[in-house]
């Protein structure tokens, strides 16, 4: 059987990749994808811990994380589309002001 730390390690690697993507990329769409990767890594850790301790609460929490991710993506993409309509250009470097 695979050791439990391997699941955690994979989760950590995926989370690190997502975090680097959020920091490095300038396209807000790709930043959102990186956030999805990070949420996904957290889901993986939850499932791994739940399986390790033999209870189902890990997967229950995964359900909640996915719901929050769906809501976040819907609102975030709507905001991105609204910004694109306003600016005709997508780069987070331009979006340094809260209002203008």
């Amino acid at each position, binding site marked *: 059987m695979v050791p439990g730390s391997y699941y955690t390690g994979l989760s950590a690697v995926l989370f690190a990749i997502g975090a680097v993507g959020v920091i490095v990329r300038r396209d807000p769409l790709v930043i*959102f994808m990186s956030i999805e*990767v990070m949420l996904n890594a957290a889901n993986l850790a939850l499932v791994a811990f739940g399986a390790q301790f033999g209870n189902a609460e890990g997967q229950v929490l995964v359900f909640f994380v*996915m719901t929050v991710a769906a809501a976040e993506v819907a*609102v975030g993409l709507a905001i991105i589309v609204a910004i694109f309509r306003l600016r005709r250009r997508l780069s987070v470097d331009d979006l340094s002001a809260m209002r203008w």
Partner: protein
Amino acid sequence: MEIAFYLSAAVAVISTLLAVTNVNPVHALLYLIVSLLAVAMVFFAIGAPFAGALEIIVYAGAIMVLFVFAIMMLIPGKEETGPDPRRPVRLLAIPFGALLLLEVLLMVVARPAHPGGRVRAAGGVQAIGRLLFTDYLFPFELTSVLLLAALVGVLALAKRGAGAGAAAGSPSGRIQGALDAAGQAAGGGSSGPAAAGRAAARPELTEPPRQGRDPAR
């Protein structure tokens, strides 16, 4: 099950790296879908079929379709004609697909050798359903409120963008008309004399879009 885990972990890490580093958002999205499917395979290998199925349905299904819609709205597509300039990259799809197919076959073949008697019973759909509707009933109901709030919020955001042309003439739509005058002027839309005057009063709004030095576009 070990081989399935190692294979899908490798696929997940590689495709996530490619998704984050790819310049083209559409390609990044496709790599991200591969990554999500690989993570779903890891869930199945751990013995959490509910999370795996949810991952495929919600993430790879619903959320990624949202991304596809957003990309379709934001980036005008280029036609795929002429010779393929990235043929060797595209041929990578064959080993990736073969790898995932191999995993599925391995899981199907390896099942009789591993009778799932271990801790699998605790992660079953029945136990999750019981937990969701007893201990976690209040958070479960809260998720419906959250989804409703997201729905209303997205509708409000989308309506402010689309209904500005009609609302520009009315006094109540003054603010959003001014907000959207820049977008309509830049987009070449006919927004009426009132909106045009308002846009002229704020010349910084009508500034044409700069040609970006951004390599990501």
